[in-house]
């Protein structure tokens, strides 16, 4: 056994060298020489791209959609004090003036006039295999890629706490808490009665399940819990069904683990009415800005780094349909109390035992 491990070391070492070689290869897709070929492609759109910082942190890119200072970006990355850096170097404070939760888009407003506006692609969405560039503020694009899948709906997975409720439609009482679950981490116990979720009263098993399913994995909900005579406030960060099932069995979630290899993912990365999938490798903070074709026309807004092999963009036509409402303030920036998320009718996998 020991012999085998030792025997493997040279193989590992060889692999290490080769992969290190790969990282610094002369010839990877995103090599400087390849990026440089895209300079003409992004020369116009980069002037309409802004770098957004929130509380001093680079949080997202944005797209200038109106010359009077309206900037579109990814809503869930925006918080705190917002500053936009323009292509010309100006740094301007921005206000949040609109939000569309289903697409996760937000409208910012800066005090400026005559800004260069992005130029939308008027033709149909580009076919699979088309080159795409994500402009930043510099002459080379931030990243490049190709269309992997034409636009489709990206369903939002249900959020799970990992509790089995009692079969009672009057009271939402926990029968058991599954091992390593979100509920266990939050300190929930069997016999606890959940009375409110984010301020909304829940009565009975079904309401509990339906309400929690209205949120996505990664979202945090605030519960009011009755434990004996005590009333407690409990914050639970929801998990996916697969995480709950794996933790309960004490096994790592391989799919999630593999998707995390190669870089961080956007927190909000599912539940979009329509999205083009492309293979551009983006950081979460590089989402929110324009995505252009080889003619420099904007084909969509990057909305999520969703996995090791996938980034999503909301198609131009879909974005354009809500622009006026985002600018006019019709789509209020205040987060809605009750979430209306785009959910599949049936979860894609059944739990081994019924959780929640």
């Amino acid at each position, binding site marked *: 056994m020991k012999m085998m491990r030792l025997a493997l070391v040279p193989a590992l070492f060889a*692999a290490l060298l080769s992969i290190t070689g790969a990282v610094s290869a002369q*010839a*990877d897709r995103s090599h400087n020489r390849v990026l440089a070929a895209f300079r003409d492609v992004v020369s116009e759109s980069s002037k309409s791209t802004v770098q957004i910082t929130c509380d001093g942190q680079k949080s997202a890119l944005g797209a200038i959609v109106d010359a009077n200072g309206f900037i579109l970006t990814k809503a869930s990355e925006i918080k705190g004090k917002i500053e936009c850096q323009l292509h010309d170097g100006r740094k301007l404070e921005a206000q949040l003036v609109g939000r569309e939760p289903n697409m996760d888009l937000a409208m910012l407003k800066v005090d400026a006039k005559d800004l260069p506006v992005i130029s939308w692609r008027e033709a149909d969405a580009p076919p*699979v295999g*088309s080159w795409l560039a994500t402009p930043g503020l510099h002459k080379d694009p931030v990243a490049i890629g190709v269309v992997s*899948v034409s636009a*489709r709906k990206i369903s939002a997975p249900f959020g799970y706490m990992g509790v089995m409720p009692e079969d009672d439609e009057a009271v939402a009482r926990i029968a058991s808490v599954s091992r390593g679950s979100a509920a266990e981490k939050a300190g929930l116990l069997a016999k606890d009665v959940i009375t409110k979720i984010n301020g909304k009263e829940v009565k009975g098993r079904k309401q509990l399940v339906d309400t929690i399913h209205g949120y996505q994995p990664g979202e945090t909900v605030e519960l009011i819990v009755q434990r004996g005579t005590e009333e407690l406030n409990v914050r639970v960060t929801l998990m996916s069904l697969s995480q709950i099932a*794996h933790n309960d069995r004490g096994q790592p979630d391989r799919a999630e683990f593999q998707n995390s290899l190669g870089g961080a993912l956007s927190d909000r990365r599912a539940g979009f009415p329509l999205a083009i999938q492309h293979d551009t490798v983006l950081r979460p903070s590089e989402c929110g800005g324009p995505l252009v074709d080889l003619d420099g026309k904007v084909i969509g807004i990057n909305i999520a780094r969703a996995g*090791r092999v996938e980034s999503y963009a909301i198609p131009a036509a879909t974005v354009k349909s809500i622009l006026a409402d985002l600018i006019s303030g019709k789509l209020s920036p205040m987060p809605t109390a009750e979430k209306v998320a785009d959910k599949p009718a049936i979860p894609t996998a059944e739990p081994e035992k019924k959780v929640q």
Partner: protein
Amino acid sequence: MRRTVTAWWFFSLLTMAALALGGIRGSQAEEAAPTPPTPPAVTPATMAEAVSDGLSKILMGGAPSTVADLKAMQERVQKLSDKLMLATVGVQVGQAQGSGVIVSKDGYVLTAAHVSGNPGRDVTFIMSDGKTLKGKTLGLNRTIDAGLMKIAEGSDFPSVEMGLSNILKDGQWCLATGHPGGYQPDRKPVLRMGRVLLSDNSTITTDCTLVGGDSGGPLFDFDGKVIGINSRIAGPINANMHVPVNTFKDTWDRMVKGDAWGHLPGNAPYLGVKGDADSKEAKIATVFPDTPAAKAGVMVGDLIISVNEVAVADYVAFQKMINDHQPGEELKLKIKRGDMDVEIKVKLAKRGG
């Protein structure tokens, strides 16, 4: 640093058997390929169109330098993509979900060995239009992670040709397809573009990003020919490994026959004995404590007569026979112990596990 080289095998989303031993093992020594290669009949190159010198230089490893170059590349990919998608299939074998590519009109499908698992298993193929077809797994070379399968119903399947993996150039442009995360009815096979970063007889590394579910899917050159099969990844985003397609061609007859050989990394069988080098028979010199052999009661001095009723000539032959089995399999050993005949059942463990 070491941690970044571990390769994670794409066991399906459902199969949770941990197989996290990295490194790429040299496999050539183990395969003294006996049968002369007989690759399947292929249709004449239909994709071999006139390509401008400039584009061809780029495709073979150069960098595009103008928007016109990029457009020429894009046009080629757009032209190819339908054909590549049609030949890419989703596969389900037992609990495993992966991908595959049809390489002949009569339905031979290349995949990864860790998707097909064993010869003779039932496979459900999911075509690009969502139609499902039944078939079987054939042979597999586990060491290099190559597996062959065949669709059993229908004919005249959309197929692509196998290309050459021995003439790949560093920087050569390539395309990968597959079903990352498993087949999804509302999603066609997923296209990725990248370049060959490294290649040798056992592995092609590219920056076409892969993830679980892509296993068994094809890596194409810009002629639309299969040059590799998606196999595994390591931490860095540009460490995506594929099985070179030549391995299929070199061992085609064995694969078609349903031979299975080699072991996935980290999945070699382990008995826990050492032979007596001075003996002409399969004589046990050492039984390591706490091993399958020790637990089953194999003793020093035992002569192994047969394994599963197959006679054993000497210790080298015995070792080879053990190596033809998989961890978890139970073997029946006939043993001569002094003047006694002993029969022992022993369940193989995983080497290093």
